[in-house]
Each structure stands twice: as structure tokens, then as C-alpha cells.
């Protein structure tokens, strides 16, 4: 049963609460830039959890099978594989350094024993195969056990090699490299429901790839103006519809979302639907354009809704209604009066992501001070929780947090001015079926689960 924690749960029951499960990552205060987590993604079954970091590494955690001796505690996530996905590169032609930071990871649906995922940095997408090896062949005829070749003349008899078990080894190998298709920085990748194609989006273009073909991609959206001086908006995120393989959406820095149908034309510069909420003129400020820029867009699992995240709010849109969202949730409205300082310290450019739970009844997104927020769409309850080492005792229940926006600060409340803006939660993920969430707090990955009474 999916729901939201807090004083009251779903359907009036008070049972639902979030508990600390695990935390991954170093404890030191001194965080190396390369260790900062830049993306988090569960696979389709939820058994695998992948993280990418600024150093170009991918770490995959696997959920242990539930143990019969502890039926009330779910399986833990342990490291399954670690590999270097991207390295820093230098584009000599343009004298540009290409960061190795992993911008996005997307899993492919599993089709055989191996697992496949796409990982991307600013310029290059790679398809990685993660496979297990737990057997080893022994008894070769032409070589020794240590691999040295035998002298063929010394072989007097032939034998059939046999497979012997060995310690499990997980290997990650790059199977495809999709490069040189993006002039601008890639911000999104999305696997299509046909499991054969995927899209990659940069600031001005979206390309369609076939997973098997690396030397060609189709450009399906190009918003680059003939005259760069006429540029007014960029693409910020893109995603395929979960069921309709011809439909995708992309969001813009102007707070608009365009839904495109690849069957209507080869080049989807003209949208099929255009989602925009009219701006409230009374709230206009120097920073109106910045805070309306959409940082993430995600379809619901049902495919009927989509959710967008801008700097201060999360909005849920019905695909059938273009003129306004059906739901709007304020994430941290108390920051509206602080926009000037947030602009100065660059926090206003932070790109928060958002995610749905498996049943689309709840949504989650991050905030500052290692806070993250959950909204229950049915009960309209919301809760603020914190990912911190202090509340990291096994199965400790997370206490809801509250930010004091003015007036007298109550006990346990935090005032806006005490918020730590260096501790930001930009990346969160929700298990596709269960109430397990992964929250990336700088260089640490927190895993929380629901507690069943």
C-alpha cells in the first residue's frame, strides 16, 4: 500500500511511516567533488538500484533476497557492481573540456540474464551490459590451469572441459557507444516502450536512436533558431510516454511542455499539445524566468498524467488538459522572498528532480537542508522528511520536519535562515512497486522503507 508518512497515512490509517534502512557513502565532512551523486535510478523490477556520480562512476546496488529469519525487514541493497562509465575528455576542436559527470542513467527492461543500462554525460551515451559469471571452465586441452599454452606435441589425450562454480563475478562491459550527436549538453535520455529505441535531449535538440545502431541517429526536435540571437528558450528535459511508443514530451526553460507525436511528422518541431500555465502577473520579479524553468518532467506510470518540477513547485498535468495543471504543490514557497540571495549563490539554478510512486498516488521531490518532500495526491497531505546521519539508526522512524516561515519559531522547527543550502537533495527515486525510496544527499545515498505495523 503506497502512501505518505506523517501523522496520518492513507485512508485514515495512522500506520504508515517511513523508516531509515541504509545509507551508502563516506561519512567525512570533506566531500570530494567526484563523489557527489548525480543520478539515481531503480530498474524495472526494483531489485537493482543504480547511481552515477560526478566522477563518471556508476555503482549498482542489488537487493538481497528476503530472509526468512527476518520477515519484517525487507532485503537490503548491497553493492553489486562498480565501474567507470565515462572519463573526462577534451574536445580539441572547440577547446572544451567535457565533464565525466553522469547526467542520467536509464535501465533497459530485462530480456535475459544480463542487465542493460544507458548512462550519459554531457556528450556521449553508453550502453552497458552487466552480467554475472559464477562458473568457470576447467580442463582445457591447449592451455594449463594458469593459462600457459601447452605444447601441442605433448598432448596425448583429449578431454572435455567442465564447468566449475566460482565466486560470483559481476562484469560491466560497454556494448554500444553513442557519440558525436550532440553539440550542446545532454540533459535527458529516455528508453522507448518499444524497447528498441531511445531518445537523447540536449539544450536545443532531441535525437532518436536505435539501441543497435551507434553511427546514426535521427533528429526529431530542433529548436535552434536560425539566428542564435533569437534564442529564448532551451529544452530542459524529455521523456517517452510509458505506453505509446510514438509519443514523447519535452519541457522548456520557459515553463512549457510540448507533447509530440512521431507519427504526425518525421521532425517534431511542431507539437501536438502545448502545456502552459499562464503566469501570474502579480508575482513577477527579476527571477520569474528562472523559477519557471522546468527542471524535470516525468510521466505517471499510468501514462495519463505527467509531473513537472520548477524551482518552487511541482505540478501534475492531465495530458488531456493543456491550459493548466490539475494539481500544484508548493515545495518550499518560503524561498520566494530569498530569490535574490539564491541567485547570488547560484542555488536558484539547482535542478531538482521528481518521481512518482508505483501506484501514482504519491509524488516526491527534494529540497534544501537535506529535506525532501512527499505529497499524497489523494489525501492532499504532504510531509517533509530529512536525510541525515542523526536519524540513521536501523529502522528508526523518520520524524516529519517543519520550516518556520515567520513569527515565533516553535520547538523542532527550523527557520529559513538556518537552512543549509549546500545540502540539497536533487535526485530521488521510488521503487516501482514497493514503498522503498532512494534519496541522494550529496555523496550519500539514503534508503528508506515503510514500516509495517
Amino acid at each position, binding site marked *: 500500500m503506497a502512501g505518505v508518512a506523517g501523522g496520518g497515512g492513507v485512508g485514515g490509517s495512522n500506520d504508515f511511516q517511513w523508516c531509515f534502512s541504509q545509507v551508502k557513502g563516506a561519512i567525512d565532512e570533506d566531500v570530494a567533488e567526484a563523489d557527489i551523486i548525480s543520478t539515481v535510478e531503480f530498474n524495472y523490477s526494483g531489485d537493482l538500484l543504480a547511481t552515477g556520480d560526478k566522477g563518471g562512476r556508476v555503482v549498482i546496488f542489488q537487493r538481497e533476497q528476503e530472509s526468512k529469519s527476518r520477515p519484517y525487514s525487507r532485503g537490503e541493497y548491497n553493492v553489486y557492481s562498480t565501474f567507470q562509465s565515462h572519463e573526462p575528455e577534451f574536445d580539441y576542436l*572547440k577547446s*572544451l*573540456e567535457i565533464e565525466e559527470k553522469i547526467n542520467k542513467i536509464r535501465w533497459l527492461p530485462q530480456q535475459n540474464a544480463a542487465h542493460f543500462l544507458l548512462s550519459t554525460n554531457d556528450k556521449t551515451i553508453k550502453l552497458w551490459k552487466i552480467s554475472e559469471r559464477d562458473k568457470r571452465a576447467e580442463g582445457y586441452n591447449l592451455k594449463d590451469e594458469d593459462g600457459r599454452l601447452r605444447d601441442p606435441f605433448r598432448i596425448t589425450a583429449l578431454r572435455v572441459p567442465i564447468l566449475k562454480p566460482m565466486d560470483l563475478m559481476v562484469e560491466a562491459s560497454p556494448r554500444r557507444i553513442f557519440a558525436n550527436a550532440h553539440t*550542446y549538453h545532454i540533459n535527458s535520455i529516455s528508453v522507448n516502450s518499444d524497447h528498441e529505441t531511445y531518445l537523447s535531449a540536449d539544450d536545443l535538440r532531441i535525437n532518436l536512436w536505435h539501441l543497435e545502431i551507434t553511427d546514426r541517429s535521427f533528429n526529431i526536435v530542433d529548436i535552434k533558431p*536560425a539566428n*542564435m540571437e533569437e534564442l529564448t528558450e532551451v529544452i530542459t528535459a524529455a521523456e517517452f510516454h510509458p505506453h505509446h511508443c510514438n509519443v514523447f514530451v519535452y519541457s522548456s526553460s520557459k515553463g512549457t511542455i510540448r507533447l509530440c507525436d512521431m507519427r504526425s511528422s518525421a521532425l517534431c518541431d511542431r507539437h501536438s499539445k502545448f502545456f502552459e500555465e*499562464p503566469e501570474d502577473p502579480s508575482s*513577477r520579479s527579476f527571477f520569474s524566468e528562472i523559477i519557471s524553468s522546468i527542471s524535470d518532467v516525468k510521466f505517471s506510470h499510468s501514462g495519463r498524467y505527467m509531473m513537472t518540477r520548477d524551482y518552487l513547485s511541482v505540478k501534475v498535468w492531465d495530458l488531456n488538459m493543456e491550459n493548466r495543471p490539475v494539481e500544484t504543490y508548493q515545495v518550499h514557497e518560503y524561498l520566494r522572498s530569498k530569490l535574490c540571495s539564491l541567485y547570488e549563490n547560484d542555488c536558484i539554478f539547482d535542478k531538482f528532480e521528481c518521481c512518482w510512486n508505483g501506484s501514482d498516488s504519491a509524488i516526491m521531490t527534494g529540497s534544501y537542508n537535506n529535506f525532501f518532500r512527499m505529497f499524497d495526491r489523494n489525501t492532499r497531505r504532504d510531509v517533509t522528511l530529512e536525510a541525515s546521519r542523526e536519524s540513521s539508526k536501523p529502522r528508526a522512524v523518520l520524524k516529519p520536519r517543519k520550516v518556520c516561515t515567520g513569527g515565533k519559531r516553535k520547538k523542532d522547527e527550523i527557520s529559513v535562515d538556518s537552512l543549509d543550502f549546500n545540502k540539497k537533495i536533487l535526485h530521488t527515486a521510488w521503487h516501482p512497486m514497493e514503498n522503498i525510496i532512494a534519496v541522494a544527499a550529496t555523496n550519500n545515498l539514503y534508503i528508506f522503507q515503510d514500516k509495517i505495523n
Partner: protein
Amino acid sequence: MLRGRRRMESTLDAQSLISISLRKIHSSRTQRGGIKLHKNLLVSYVLRNARQLYLSERYAELYRRQQQHYPDGAPLLAMPACPPPPAPPELPVLPLPADTQDREVRSCAAVRGGAELLEGPVCAAPPELQRAPCRDSSPGFYRAAGSAGPGGGGGGGSSAAPGLLYAAGCDFGTGGVPHCSSRTTVLDLDTHVVTTVENGYLHQDCCSQCPCCCQPVAGLASPPPAPGTKRKYYPGQEEEEEGVEEGEPGGGGVAGGPPFAPCTKRARFEEYSAEHPQDSSNISNLISIFGSGFTGLVSRQQADSEQPLNGQLCGKQALASLGAWTRAIVAF
């Protein structure tokens, strides 16, 4: 009185936002991973908003002073005879103190009038020295924002564009006819070609000498103007080979013509900024040096193009003139 103080505060806020924004754009050039188009676009919006507020306040102030001194009518601030253009799309409705519905129209007029007042001496410079600045010599840079085409009306912010971010060279030409053309120079990151575009934009930079300041913006309804001159991009000593892809290796924009004083000034700016990369308090001065290098100093010391750049000398004037800011942005 209180209104005046609030106005002053918002002007100061606008000023600090402008310098902060310019600093961000400047530092983005050296950031790892290359210039982020999205971030720079957003910064340019803030810059535009702050600048518009600052300027509209400034010109409103000037207008008020004029009214005080010349209650019977101000010959200095004569509005041009031609009909005012439609509100440029780049002026969104900003919540200015004591704003009224017709504020936008009023500030447009004030801006034009004010520009005439301020740009008068500047535009008296010899025409051949009024050039769009040459490209910044930072490889791989491209300008993050540009103006929209003539969008419909000035209502709302969403269709507005950072339209003032282009270089405005008041190009008189020898015949004194069609001037007030603006030139923009952009580097296309895809093709690596530097393009100088001329178009008949209305720009507040136009000086009092040009009666055709008020060319209707509708003139721009056509698709983007023909690229005009294209020239290869020469960062420092290197040669960019990529430009040949476009077929036009050079449109003759570089060679020939009057001495390219702007390039000299730009080289100095580069040195200056390299020496003081973190000196944020001097950002205004840097910008004013840059701006003045092309018009301010030229007007004062026309014969002496080697005048050492003096930030203090040009600071106030540059702040007041639109051209300095726009040229600074384009340079970045």
C-alpha cells in the same frame, strides 16, 4: 519622499543584480565542461529585467528633472516626431513602485527620450569609428541569449525575450542614411562561424540625430535577416578552419575599412580582466571600460585611440548608456 527612496533602492538592487549577472557570465567562460547555455540564458533574463528597471527608473528621473527645470516644455527631451513604435517585446511589465497601467508606454517614451539626451554627445563621433565590436577572443564561447523576433505586444513575460542583448552600433554611414541599424555578432557553436547580422531593429541607443529612430518593429516580421557578413573567427593567433564548412570563408568584415580600434580596446580589456579575475567590485568599471572603449572614449578623444582606459572616467557614463551594457554582453 518615500517613493523616491524606494525607487533609489530598486535602482541600486538593479545595479547590483546587473553586476552579479555579468560576473556570472564572465566566470562561466572558464567553468569546467564548457559554457552552459541554459544557465547563461537564464542569467541574461535577469540581466535584462534588472537593466530595464534600472534604465526606466533612470530615465524617469531625468524626465522628472527636465520637467522641473523646464516646466513649459523641454526642448532637450523632445520626442521624435515619428509615431512611437509598438512596445518592444523586450519590456515586460515589471512591478515598479507606483506603477500604473500606462507606465510601460511612458517608460518606453522616457527611455527613447532619455537615450537621446545621453547619447547626443556620443553619437557625434565620426561615423567610421562606430563599429560593432569585434568578437571576443575566447574560443568556444557563444552568446547565450538573443532577442526574439517581433513578438506580439509587450504583455506578459513569457513571450518577451532578452531582446536588448545585441550590439547597437549607431552606424551613420557616409550618407547618414539608413543608420540606426544594429549589428549583432554571434558565434554559432555548431558550425563555428561568426556571423555579423544587420537588421533594422529599433534600439534605444539611437541618438538624437536620427529621425528614423522610430522604425516600427514590425519591419522585423520577416524571417531572420540575411546573415550579412560572415567572417572567420580568429581567436588570438589561431585560425579557425571550421568556418569553411559554411562555404563563405569570410565576408570581408574583418579586413579593410577604418582602423579597428575596438579590437585594440578589447585586447586591453582581456588583459585587465585576466589580471583581476575575482575583483567583483570592479565589474562595473570593467564593463564601462569596455563600453567606453568603443564609443565613450572615442567621442572624447577622437584622435587618440591609444588613450589608456580609465574606468573611473567612464563609469558613470557607461552605466547610463545602454550601449555599454549590450556591447558587454555580446562581447561575453
